[in-house]
Structure formats: C-alpha cells, structure tokens
C-alpha cells in the first residue's frame, strides 16, 4: 500500500541553524501539507501546497518557514533560523484531491530537537 515517507526520523540542531525536513508524498496525490505537534499538545496546521504554490498557511508559518517541491516527488519544509520553540514533531501529509479521495494520509513524522 502506498505511504507517505519522511526523512530524517530525528533531527538535532543548534539554535539559529537552518534545517530541511523532507517528505515523499503518495505518488498520485495533488495536495501536500505540513503539520506540527509540540510535545504533549495538539497537532497544528502549518501550510498546504497545491500546483506548486502555497494554498493556505497558518499564523505559525512565518518568514522563517518555506516549502518547496523541488523535483516532482519530494516536498520539503525549511526552517531558516531555528528557535528553541521550533522543537516539535513535524508531520507531512498528502491527499489525492479527486472526488472520494479527501482523506489526508500522514507520514511517520520527523522529530526536531533544537538545542
């Protein structure tokens, strides 16, 4: 069964460093998402991406964040200058976009630790 994959599973970085989190969505899906879950808290929407551009973003997704689909298969989230409060689990999700395929499928997540 097709699945969303994410790398790395765990990333440790120093405050102020740039990180890139990678995702490979399900191959025929059209919509892509990043969510964040700070430990012990609810899952929060960051950004959605369709047709090579951002379609929605939350107030969390400020200028420090950017997303890209560089090669038609990968979907990346870049945090330009990490802060301590960026420590969280980051989930990528994708959905087909066609009628009857509205379910979002999540990847296993990347745990980001900012020291």
């Amino acid at each position: 069964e097709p699945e969303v994959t994410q790398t790395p599973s765990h990333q440790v970085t120093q405050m102020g460093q740039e990180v890139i989190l990678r995702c490979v969505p399900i191959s025929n899906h059209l919509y892509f998402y990043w969510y964040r879950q700070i430990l012990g808290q609810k899952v929060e929407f960051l950004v959605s991406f369709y047709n090579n551009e951002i379609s929605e973003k939350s107030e969390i997704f400020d200028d420090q964040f950017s997303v890209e689909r560089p090669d038609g298969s990968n979907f990346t989230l870049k945090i330009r200058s990490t802060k301590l409060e960026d420590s969280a689990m980051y989930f990528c999700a994708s959905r087909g976009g066609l009628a009857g395929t509205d379910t979002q499928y999540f990847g296993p997540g990347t745990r980001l630790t900012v020291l």
Partner: protein
Amino acid sequence: AQTVTQSQPEMSVQEAETVTLSCTYDTSESDYYLFWYKQPPSRQMILVIRQEAYKQQNATENRFSVNFQKAAKSFSLKISDSQLGDAAMYFCAYRSGSGSARQLTFGSGTQLTVLP
C-alpha cells in the same frame, strides 16, 4: 474559525470491553468531514475512521464506529471489543468541505489506556 473539543484527556477500558470517546465541534458550515486519527507511542498518525457530514448513516470500520449527531455537533468514537493494541492517543479532526486547501483542525486528544 472552526474548533474541535475533546473533553476527556484520558480514558481507560478493560480489554474486550467497549469505550466511547467524545468529540464536539463548532462550525457554521454545512459541508464538512470529520475524522478520528490514532497516534500510538511511535507518534505516527493513523486514520481510524471518517464521516461525511451529508451522510446520515454513521460510519463503521470493523470494531470502530461513530455516533454522528449533526444538530448537536457531536462526533463520538466507539471502540468495541477493545484490544491492547488500541492503546494510543486519539485525535478528532474537522475538515471543511469548501476551499482547495482543506486542512485539518484537530482536537487536543484523548489518551486511551487498555487494561489487561
């Protein structure tokens, strides 16, 4: 903006028994979807069940079923014949039926413990 509320931070159930997890939501929309996701200790988000708001029939997936009360804006999850592997954090989520992005809005979760 839509909100999703899960009022039970923790629940426990005996193995083989039935448990119901509560979820309420607030929306002014008539077209939307509701989901239950399971998050085991691995923290992977796994879809358990989904419900389209326009469908009156409650969704069922094997031992998992929902009680969808549209007028009351309530969407509870019933787990029958609970198994040890059901132990996880359960999140209720809402998604609008309009707009292209259709991001999910999650509740705060219910931690389910299954007692042997």
